[in-house]
């Protein structure tokens, strides 16, 4: 598997703050809040601004209560539930996210579909995991900063997926509940060590959901970067997507 791209090397970071990004980000907002899209809807740009939409399927994994459902809500700008209700099946959430490729200046809409399945449901019903794995592009491994065991279990989880997928997958680690520093059970040094050993990006989330895009942009841009880079490497090897091959 190729080296992970450095942050900000593939897509423009903080593009949502740039003037030229505005018209695109406006399409995912409605009255200053995040717009909710049904399956029949997508951001529509005026005809002269043709933008391709790239679809990705992303699976969220981590033990019950770690914050999978909350992360999906956070990434679509919805409030996170303060009571923990077990997710009793598979729920998917769609996030549209515009990115600007650094080298070509080309703009893309990513359609990220997050697949979230409760751990208990996975255990009780055999058909759910295969359904989550079907044509999946990326896995987000979640651990909670307030739960050491969820962190310690990461290597185990990651190797399970690595064996099966043989490098076809983009992998990212997300530490949740970073806001609860009073109850923090995972030291920053441990996270650094982990990152060096596994060479995977680790992102941190936590706190109230705000209406702005600042909270979610690091995670979504990082994910976008990994996915696009991965696609280019794959495409490069079979000679597709000329313009992006030059980018490598």
């Amino acid at each position, binding site marked *: 598997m190729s080296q992970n791209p450095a942050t900000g090397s593939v897509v423009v970071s903080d593009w949502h703050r740039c003037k030229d990004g505005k018209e695109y980000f406006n399409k995912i907002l409605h009255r200053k809040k995040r717009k909710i*899209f049904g399956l029949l809807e997508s951001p529509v740009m005026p005809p002269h601004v043709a933008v391709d939409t790239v679809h990705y399927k992303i699976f969220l994994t981590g033990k019950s209560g770690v914050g999978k459902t909350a992360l999906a809500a956070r990434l679509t700008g919805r409030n996170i539930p303060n009571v923990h209700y077990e997710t*009793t099946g598979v729920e998917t959430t769609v996030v549209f996210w515009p990115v600007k490729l650094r080298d070509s200046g080309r703009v893309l809409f990513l359609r990220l579909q997050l697949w979230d399945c409760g751990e208990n449901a996975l255990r009780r019903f055999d058909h*759910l995991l295969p359904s989550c794995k079907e044509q999946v592009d990326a896995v987000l491994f979640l651990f909670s900063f307030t739960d050491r065991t969820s962190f310690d279990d990461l290597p185990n989880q990651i190797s399970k997926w690595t064996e099966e997928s043989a490098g076809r997958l983009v992998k990212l680690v997300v530490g949740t509940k970073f806001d609860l520093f009073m109850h923090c059970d995972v030291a920053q040094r441990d996270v650094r060590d982990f990152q060096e050993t596994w060479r995977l990006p680790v992102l941190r989330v936590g706190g109230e959901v705000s209406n702005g895009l600042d909270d979610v942009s690091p995670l979504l841009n990082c994910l976008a970067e990994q996915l696009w880079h991965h696609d280019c490497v794959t495409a490069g090897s079979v000679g597709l997507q000329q313009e992006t091959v030059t980018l490598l």
Partner: protein
Amino acid sequence: MMLQDGSTQLLCLTASSGVPLFTRGASKQLPFSVIGSLNGVHMFGGGQGVVLSGCETEGGGKVVWRVFQDSVMLIAVNGGGQGGVGCSREEEVRLQRLLENVWNCMVLVLGQDELANIRNVERLKRDLRSCFGLIDQMLEERQEGVLGSLTHCADLLLPPNPTLLQEAVDGFAEAADSEFGCLIIHGRIAAATEKWWRLAPQEVVLLSALIRSLSDSASASCDYPVFLPHGSPTVAHRLLRFQLLPGADVCVLCGPSPSLHTAETGLVGRFWAPLVETLRDCLAVGERCVPQAVNLRPDVLALLLINRETRRSVSSVLHPLADAPPPSKARCWELLKLFYIFSTTRYFTQEESVCVSTEESGPRGRANDFARGFSHQPLQCYLVTEECKSYALQTPQHQLFLLFPPSVPTFVLRTAATQTLSDVVAATGL
């Protein structure tokens, strides 16, 4: 009573040994000793050959008990007092319904086997946590204007263009290898396949509630294993749900295939993309649930129409003026529910109505005694209170419940009700 006024607490214990499985509702929990006594007094009755199904405290509190499958005991406790709605008979009916609904939620998520044959209590306790989302929804009765959990009739939204939607639901379900398909708009059924309507009424209502809670979470699609409390309590089916537009969800109940991914990428767009505008028209009907084209008398505040044969209903609170005098919209929904319970426990007491439960140890007794005092079956009834005037009428096929402002002369009510019934039925075919 140790509960706050008006709040309801739900207790679940094993029937055989009284081990607490969970409690829900009410911020202030009942002490363990009280829970133990509530279980004890029921057991004592059992030993004497008496089924204790409900009791009332001096302060207006209510307790109802019910054992399911000889395995699980559910107890609902209401603090009574100011916040409590209606009088004690209405409250008891409400609580009995609640227990039945909660049990159905438990079966829906976990299946009957695990509940009826408890092998490992600790494991069951953990698994039961999966039901809390739905159970809390039943306790809170969050969504205004959805009465199905009380009436056990499906809440409908009558679309302006039913034929197109019906064809799409039928075609979509068939393509998904399913006979059970349903389109839900604002939490109410706008179209469903023939087979969906053959599910038990409680199941239709329960699935609608599940879909509502999933729809509220704004997720795009779901694959949920569900057991059907009546039709398939031991074998799970898959409920696939797709959010077409915010507030518009289509669902199918199916077997092992198709996968969620396949159905979503292959079928959703094909069947529904051509109907986006039709769906938007349907969403525009909104909470009124009855298309604007159906003319309702301006003096009707709220209505609930039930088709007794098909177990379908439509309800609506009509507030034409923004600064309308009280009762408020929320209060109208409350009053409509109370008047429904009032009428069905005292006058319209048939098989399907609330007071006669088909399962063991349901609330019978006094309500029926009252009805037996009549030599005939009442067809109409009315109630005049300070807040509003209410009128109900029933025919072999329908029941209609209406609220009017107090200013409407009482002698007009009957004519208004009869006219509304024929207008709505003629316009909607319900």
